[in-house]
């Protein structure tokens, strides 16, 4: 598409958003979106396939090329248009994986409902004995006619209590080497043999669950990719997951309206324009410099890739440094808040302080999920530095 046509397209997108984004969704907090206007807005988006702009239109996508899709995303971002958060597992992870590995029948069955935000998905990967070493998972699936019977346990399943379906890693060949006996299967959550037990975390949230399978059923035709070839599919899906990590602009902390600098200035105080505590001043500057260097490094990697210059893979490095940075931000906030960072409920703490307390606790997980810090360092040592094993 020519530059002129792209500009024309941008104006179209803009006016469509202008026409359909309800006023109630343009201001105020993102926490409690008014239900009916939000439903209508999502309907307007899915009517154009804009939750999944690059997907082919026959599967409910927007049928757009990369440049057009980027325009749609940019325009939605520019007005801070709210999007269904529950869609991420389907839209970001499973959908692209089915597009790559799925049969025509599987694409037709699963992609359109995802693009319309009609089905909530959850991800059945981790198990109590298979965290960083995911491939050692033990949940068994035994073929019986056209079905698999599944028994075992998953953990850290985000949104399992609200999900309709799960994409799940199961062991279909217990005798094969651990990476070669895994299959990637889709199964409905609302059935006998599936039990969900939410887990309350240290920050008080219960977004994660344990999921117990005792004779749960999945259809044999719902295995994505080859039977016993699920590890390849699973890894590919993780790449889709990681591709979104960097884009969250500080992740959880992005939701906090007050910057760290403002918080520290307020809590610690300035004397002649200089923070009253020289050690906290150093910590804050370190944190800000780290943020800056991480952003520059990710940008440089992109530029190098675009220019076709050989560059070392820095995906794991980015995740590792991002996790540490996000955690350190909350550490500096807590040091600055002192005991005002310890509130849980009741009087004596304002909303900003309570939000920081929660953010401090929540971000402890950032060096664990999506590959722990230690796993990221292992990956760098092996793949980038090519140290012997």
């Amino acid at each position, binding site marked *: 598409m020519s530059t002129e046509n792209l500009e024309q397209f941008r104006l179209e997108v803009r006016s469509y958003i202008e026409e359909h984004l309800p006023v109630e969704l343009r201001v105020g907090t993102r926490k409690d979106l008014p239900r009916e206007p939000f439903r209508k807005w999502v309907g307007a988006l899915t009517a154009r396939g804009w939750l999944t702009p690059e997907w082919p239109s026959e599967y409910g996508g927007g049928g757009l090329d990369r440049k057009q899709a980027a325009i749609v995303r940019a325009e939605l971002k520019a007005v801070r248009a709210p999007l269904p958060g529950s869609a991420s597992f389907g839209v970001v992870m499973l959908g692209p994986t089915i597009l790559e590995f799925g049969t025509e029948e599987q694409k037709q069955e699963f992609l359109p409902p995802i693009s319309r935000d009609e089905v909530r998905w959850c991800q059945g990967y981790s198990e109590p004995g298979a965290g960083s070493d995911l491939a050692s998972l033990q949940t068994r699936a035994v073929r019986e006619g056209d079905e698999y019977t599944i028994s075992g346990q998953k953990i850290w399943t985000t949104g399992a209590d609200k999900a309709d379906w799960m994409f799940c890693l199961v062991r279909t060949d217990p005798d094969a080497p651990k990476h070669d006996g895994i299959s990637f299967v889709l199964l409905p959550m609302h059935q006998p043999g599936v039990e969900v037990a939410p887990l309350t975390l240290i920050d008080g949230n219960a977004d994660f669950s344990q999921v117990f399978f005792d004779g749960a059923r999945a259809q044999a035709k719902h295995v994505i990719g080859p039977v016993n070839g699920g590890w390849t599919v699973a890894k590919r899906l993780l790449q889709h997951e990681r591709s979104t990590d960097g884009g969250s602009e500080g992740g959880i902390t992005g939701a906090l309206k007050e910057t760290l*600098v403002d918080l*520290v*200035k307020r809590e610690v105080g*300035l004397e002649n*324009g*200089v*923070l009253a505590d*020289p050690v906290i*001043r*150093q910590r*804050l*500057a*370190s944190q*800000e*410099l780290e943020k*800056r*260097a*991480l952003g*520059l*490094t990710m*940008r*440089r990697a992109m*530029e*190098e890739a675009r*220019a076709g*210059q050989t560059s*070392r893979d*820095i995906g794991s*490095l980015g995740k*590792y*440094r991002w996790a540490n940075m996000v955690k350190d931000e909350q550490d500096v906030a807590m040091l600055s808040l002192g005991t005002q960072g310890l509130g849980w409920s009741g009087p004596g703490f304002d909303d900003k302080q309570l939000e920081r307390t929660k953010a401090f606790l929540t971000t402890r997980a950032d060096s664990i999920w999506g590959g722990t810090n*230690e796993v*990221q*360092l*292992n990956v*760098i*040592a*092996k793949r*980038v*530095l*090519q*140290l*012997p*094993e």
Partner: protein
Amino acid sequence: MGLILTEDQLILRDMAKDFCDEKSPVERMRALRDARDATGFSRELWKEMGELGWIGIPFPESVGGGDMGYGELGVVLSECGRVLAPEPFVSTVLLGGNALLLGANEPLMKELLPDVCSGERILCLAFQEQGRFAPYAVETSATRDGGGFRLQGRKQFVLDGHVADQIVVAARTAGSSGERDGLSLFVVDASAEGLDVQRSELLDGRNAAVVSFDDVAVDAARTLGEIDAGAEVLDAVFDRATIGLCAEMLGSFEDAFERTLAYLKTREQFGARIGTFQALRHRAAQMFGELEFARSVVRDAQSAIDDERDDVAECASAAKARCSDVARLIGAEGIQMHGGIGMTDEEEIGLFFKRLKAAELTLGDAIYHRNRFAGLCGY
């Protein structure tokens, strides 16, 4: 200009690398040190670098320079850093040369810079009077005397001062030590009466002189910048010099890291190559990460100068804060991972360790630059 090297810069890098590998392997720096060479570097090699146009990179064509940017200069400095070449880029180009350039004294520029670009003239900047970097802590005085000034005071850590043909000196014409106002910059000939220059050697084999001024006369025409407002020039000089020094450090990081990595891949203990041990693998991965981050902030700082952005000062401090920390990490881990052999003078990692320590503390350490960055950001 961005964060990656342009085609031209890649070509320049390859040329500089070949040149440095051939003419200036690390053994050359060691030989100069062991011989306690009177100059401390090779004047011949410096002139060759002048002929190649490297010295003149940041200077305008009107004075014999190449009118190029810090992207290009950084490429050359990094390659020099890879082989620990002791040639006087920091003293003559980054400090003294920049003072002449930014001091905007046209007659002085025309008189001195052409020979600087060709490699025949060595410069230095005499500013420091105490150990920790404090650019305005200047007590050396310049007192008006007819049409000129008389200088009185003592400077230390004057890089390459023992061979400099001209000394750019920061002196106080008003106010008291620590104040930004009241500083002035003058160019003094090495032959000036009342000037005493004592050479001292540093741990990294380079040279820094103690320079004393005892009633040294200097003509008002040899002022850089405005009287009492020398800090305007000095600040900009330090920013550019800091960014250039960081580029040199980057090259030393790369080579020291590669040497350490190679050692991890070959050295055997307990029946295994030590690079198989997770305790060392994780630390090597940390070093890799720091090196990548350092490269990003240094490139960004170079393009801040070249694109005439208004955040050069922030970028300079961001780069030096990072590079000073990385210097300590890569230097210390370099020795530690080499084990006992890393402590020997014969093993080259020790030479990198010492150069990195010197660079870490030159023009402000990480603590200084984090404080400065914080100040520039309003906290």
